[in-house]
């Protein structure tokens, strides 16, 4: 309708990525709740050059607010600066907290992948892991690479990164191969629960290694959470992507209407979903809310 | 030998064919009867192959009518023409270089054996027939499984002719079949044409060689720049007159004299 402020969301995650589809769901729900118009845009691969152009395109449309993820402040900085210069309030989410103040971003919602990774690494160490296999289904996606890097730093022990494609059969076979070739691996960490985590559980169970090898994963999926609840997997790392979509949009809606904005950054994770908490989350996860 | 009173096997009525802005055929009429060899003569680019293409279902005429056995037909594809009993040797041969001689020979009309879903291409029979038909035309293919791309120009032409002759049902169209053939193979092919005619088929024979045409043809149609110059029965026209008609009159006299009448 006329008079409805428009808020544009530009991120680096494809719409088909499970994590980012939850972010988008959060943003859209916020739009409904606060009665604003939201348009969500993202390049089809991890492509900083294209993303900068999408931000430029958003600025051209003079929205009431702009939400961006910022995995590469060097590449996206100039476009974000242009938005700020044009007088558009900008909120960053998910990644890029360090550059937020420098670029004139209003506030940041999310958790730096690197530091989240450190927390996860430490948690794995605490749970008695001695060698981690970090399965990365999209090598070169800087955000995912930082997850593994953070885990390596936080874990303090040997962490092997295993690159794969997003094909479930390939992922399961490669995990099986890695486990049979290197018997010392006792933790398999997936960077995406639906794509890797579920396959890792299948591989470990299929090889009869349930007692020895622990499985954990970033992000949530109903199937993986079920495994967590059944004790076949240790935990799922939750960054609360729904929040990362909801909070910036609703805040910018308030900003457009009443001029109010939070004064500081909002950390959204990581939190761990464990055996105790998993059952409540399964239903929401199947609907793309958690 | 021509049967002017009987229904012609094939009748072409005022056919035109345009390619974009090019008018390849500008109104051509012609008839072929059973048991006759009609020779189609004409200079390069006169439109002979285009005319043949419309009979064989390769081109659809821009205007005009085709009749087979007196009934108007429209061939949407070469398969329709084949089904109507018209077999053609194309000037560009229409063969697949990467495929074997046998596979090319039977392309589109494979002999089968076995039953139901287990019907299979009877390769042994096909090989045998191919070998036999090629030997008849004077070519001893080393191995019918050899790729057509490795054959010599003349050998390839022989495969195309043997194929058309083998499958010819009612009408046989030959577009410059003898152009790449050696002496022995040429005489073979001409003899074949005679035999085919005697068995009651209609034959359309395109050639630039007036001697070849005169040796086997009953009637001669001359095309020039996309139009018919007329049709003549053998007893109406001499070889020299035909030669002159084909090449456009006086030009040839000079040349013929110069080269001692050897063309």
């Amino acid at each position, binding site marked *: 309708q006329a008079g409805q402020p428009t808020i544009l969301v530009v991120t680096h995650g494809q719409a088909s990525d499970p994590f980012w589809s939850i972010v988008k769901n959060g943003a859209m729900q916020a739009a409904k709740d606060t009665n604003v118009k939201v348009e969500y845009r993202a390049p089809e691969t991890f492509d900083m050059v294209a993303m900068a152009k999408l931000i430029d395109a958003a600025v051209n449309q003079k929205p009431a607010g702009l939400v961006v993820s910022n995995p590469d402040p060097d590449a996206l900085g100039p476009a974000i600066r242009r938005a700020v210069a044009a007088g558009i309030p900008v909120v960053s989410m998910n990644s890029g907290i360090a550059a937020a103040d420098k670029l004139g971003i209003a506030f940041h919602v999310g958790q730096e992948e690197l530091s989240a990774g450190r927390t996860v690494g430490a948690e794995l160490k605490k749970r008695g892991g001695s060698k981690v296999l970090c399965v990365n289904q999209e*090598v070169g996606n800087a955000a995912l690479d930082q997850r593994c890097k953070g885990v390596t730093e936080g874990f303090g022990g040997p962490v092997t990164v295993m690159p794969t494609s997003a094909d479930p059969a390939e992922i399961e076979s490669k995990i099986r191969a890695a486990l*049979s070739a290197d018997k010392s691996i006792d933790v398999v960490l997936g960077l995406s629960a639906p794509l890797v985590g579920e396959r890792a559980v299948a591989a470990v169970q299929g090889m009869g290694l349930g007692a020895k090898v622990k499985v954990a994963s970033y992000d949530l999926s109903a199937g993986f959470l079920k495994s967590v609840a059944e004790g076949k997997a240790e935990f799922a790392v939750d960054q609360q992507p729904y929040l990362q979509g909801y909070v910036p949009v609703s805040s910018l809606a308030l900003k457009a209407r009443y001029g109010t904005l939070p004064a500081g950054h909002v950390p959204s994770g990581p939190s761990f979903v464990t055996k105790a908490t998993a059952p409540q989350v399964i239903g929401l996860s199947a609907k793309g809310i958690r | 030998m021509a049967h002017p009173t009987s229904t012609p096997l094939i009748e072409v009525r005022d056919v035109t064919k345009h390619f974009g802005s090019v008018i390849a055929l500008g109104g051509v009429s012609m008839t072929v009867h059973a048991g006759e060899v009609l020779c189609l003569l004409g200079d390069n680019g006169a439109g002979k192959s285009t005319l043949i293409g419309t009979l064989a279902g390769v081109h659809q005429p821009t205007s005009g009518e085709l009749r087979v056995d007196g009934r108007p037909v429209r061939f949407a594809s070469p398969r329709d023409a084949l089904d109507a009993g018209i077999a053609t040797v194309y000037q560009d041969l229409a063969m697949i270089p990467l495929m074997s001689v046998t596979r090319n020979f039977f*392309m589109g009309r494979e002999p089968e054996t076995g039953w139901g879903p287990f019907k299979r291409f009877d390769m042994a029979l096909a090989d045998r027939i191919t070998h036999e038909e090629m030997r008849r035309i004077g070519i001893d293919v080393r191995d019918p499984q050899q790729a057509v791309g490795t054959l010599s120009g003349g050998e390839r032409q022989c495969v195309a002719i043997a194929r058309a002759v083998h499958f010819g049902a009612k009408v046989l169209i030959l577009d410059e079949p003898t152009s790449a053939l050696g002496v022995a193979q040429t005489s073979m092919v001409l003899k074949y044409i005679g035999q085919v005619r005697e068995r009651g088929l209609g034959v359309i024979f395109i050639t630039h060689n007036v001697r070849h045409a005169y040796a086997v043809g009953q009637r001669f149609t001359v095309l020039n720049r996309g139009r018919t110059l007329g049709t003549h029965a053998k007893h109406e026209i001499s070889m020299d007159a035909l030669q002159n008609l084909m090449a456009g009159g006086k030009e040839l006299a000079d040349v013929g004299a110069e080269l001692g009448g050897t063309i």
Partner: protein
Amino acid sequence: MTGTLSPPETGQARAADERLKHVSPMAALIRRPELGAIGGLVLVTLFFLSVADPSMFSLAGVMNFMAPAAQLGILAIGAALLMIGGEFDLSLGSMVAFAGLVFAGCLVVWQVPLPLALLATFATAVAIGLVNAQITLRTGLPSFIVTLAFLFILRGLTLVGLKWASGGATQLRGVKEAVEGSVLAPLFMGHTFTGLFSWMAERGWIARFDNGQPAVTGIPIEILWFIALTAVATWVLLRTKYGNWIFAAGGDAKGARKSGVPVARVKIALFITTAACAALVAVLTVLDAGSTDARRGFQKEFEAIIAAVIGGCLLTGGYGSAIGAFFGSIIFGMVLIGLTYTGIDQDFYLVFLGGMLLLAVIFNNIVRKRVTGER
């Protein structure tokens, strides 16, 4: 008019042609283009035998790399047939995702019984194959660009459909529960010959896990599908008239048409076959994983073409074999999984994949040239 013309007077019956060098029957036997792909496979196998962990070639290890190879291979067989027929299908991978959505949607959302779900899935695939074929043939556009459009369209529709079916997520699950007890299920999921394998495990012929379970419980069903499809495709290509038509349509569509080959129908059938192969893979993977998601089959069209080309198919059409694609898929699957068994730094994953591919193909080429003689 077969055989009614007068017999040849000129054909001097020659027992042997003096213009043929002598070739031993053995050499003639191995003079098949597939030998190249086998050569590549042998090379890759030798490589891994020498550098990889021996568990790679244990029974469990072989099954492990054969399963993804088989899934890829089913697509590669379809892609190879289509390539021999002179066309591409780039929508293959997206088709896997879309068929997976249809299949899982039928089972989970509409609670349709398995046979009907299978029917719906394959019917969808056939319909899309037909659309691809019709647009390609009617417009005369290259199939590369037409199916490319469907690569995008089907992938996009899958995402939209999944979100709709799951209420907002990109994953649809609960398929295993939905098919439990269906009589058709064993045809598409799990392992076969499980009795045999556990019997062998009891005798100690097969390694067992610490918990006493045999390391290999049976042959994954997709491997059987893969082998069966290869056999059928090979038979069709080499032994039926349809095979002849496929080669002809791909070798020179115009020439084939002139000779009476129904080129359009052949190509339509091939597009449909390829789409059906994609649907089969979708069914197998959805039942295997118990769920489907928006990324299923991502870039599989590409890998299928690679496998077909490794196996000796020409991109220009008219040449290739299903057996070649079979070995090509195994080479690709082996290289994909194999690095994990070696001590090589995993960061070199792609370098290794590329290098091995190149080596296998070059070797393949050398072997083929050697056996078929100078070009």
